[in-house]
């Protein structure tokens, strides 16, 4: 088989694929590079997701914490509006990112991702229903502060742990376990400090998770497996 020079398109953008064989080392390098490219392009970027949610929790719960105390200069309503806006940003970024990465995929992966999407969507709808119900039934501000922070964190922690177990991702499992511990610590620290605990331990934990994933990616750029290794 010969290379076809007429297939080479010097213009930018999509081009005819380079044809013909190259030497074995070059072919092996081609496999490694393309595999890494596909894995990178079709799988969610944990750094982005943990980073966005870590920042949203750190700032969002951080807004709520001083709002609990008098003389902070921030009304409770404004703090909750800011918190809600940050959560919305997190949801939108996550949805757009996952949709882009999954685009054009079909088969078992797509079904799996759709079920995961429903898992998050339905559990958080139930959390929202619980918060609404408690609010309408006259729960005190103290009770609301604890429940509205701890319950969502508990759901996140549990889903991360389950996801980590299913995907064999010990990092994700560990992060989920940490979030669960942070939720427990937040609950036990009571209404005065629960938002502080969720901001620092929860948001901080997610940001550290993003950093660890980043270091893992940059320190072993060839997590793309060598050709011949089991895939």
């Amino acid at each position: 088989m010969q290379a076809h020079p007429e297939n080479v398109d010097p213009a930018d953008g999509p081009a005819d694929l380079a044809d013909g064989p190259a030497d074995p080392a070059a072919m092996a390098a081609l496999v490694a590079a393309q595999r890494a490219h596909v894995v990178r392009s079709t799988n969610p970027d944990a750094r982005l997701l943990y980073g966005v949610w870590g920042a949203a929790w750190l700032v969002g719960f951080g807004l709520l914490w001083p709002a609990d105390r008098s003389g902070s200069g921030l009304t409770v309503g404004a703090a909750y509006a800011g918190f809600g806006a940050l959560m919305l940003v997190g949801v939108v970024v996550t949805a757009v990112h996952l949709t882009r990465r999954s685009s054009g995929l079909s088969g078992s992966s797509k079904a799996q991702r759709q079920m995961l999407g429903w898992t998050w969507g339905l559990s958080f709808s139930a959390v929202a229903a619980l918060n609404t119900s408690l609010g309408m039934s006259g729960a005190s501000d103290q009770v609301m502060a604890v429940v509205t922070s701890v319950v969502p964190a508990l759901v996140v922690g549990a889903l991360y742990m389950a996801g980590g177990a299913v995907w064999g991702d010990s990092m994700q499992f560990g992060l989920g376990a940490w979030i669960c511990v942070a939720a427990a610590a937040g609950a036990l620290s009571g209404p005065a400090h629960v938002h502080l605990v969720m901001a620092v331990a929860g948001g901080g934990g997610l940001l550290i998770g993003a950093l660890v994933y980043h270091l893992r990616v940059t320190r072993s750029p060839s997590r793309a497996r060598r050709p011949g290794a089991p895939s």
Partner: protein
Amino acid sequence: MSADLDPVIHSQARLRIMTTLTALPAGDRLTFPRLQQLLDATAGNLSTHLRKLEDAGYVEVVKSFRGRVPSTEVGATRDGRRAFEDYLAALQALLTPPAAPAARTDPEADRSATSPQEER
């Protein structure tokens, strides 16, 4: 050198296509535009190579309609995955030649030097 390498896969274009499709879990498919995007290829060129792979039974091209919009999905078949694994194994074998392959090239000079080592 390339006698053991499957000629259907042993082209840069088709190797990249097979790499892309087998990087997905078994049973998964990609739409044609997404595959095109992951390979940064033109549609016509990609079609040409896909036809060769389809003729060999290595990929399946499924055409359907989503509503009124025609959709083409491409996936690696079981045979294709096996052929790709075999190709990678053959490639790996070429990259890691058996020990002391040069011993036979110069019988006069090498025999005395390599024989004692080979007996160990």
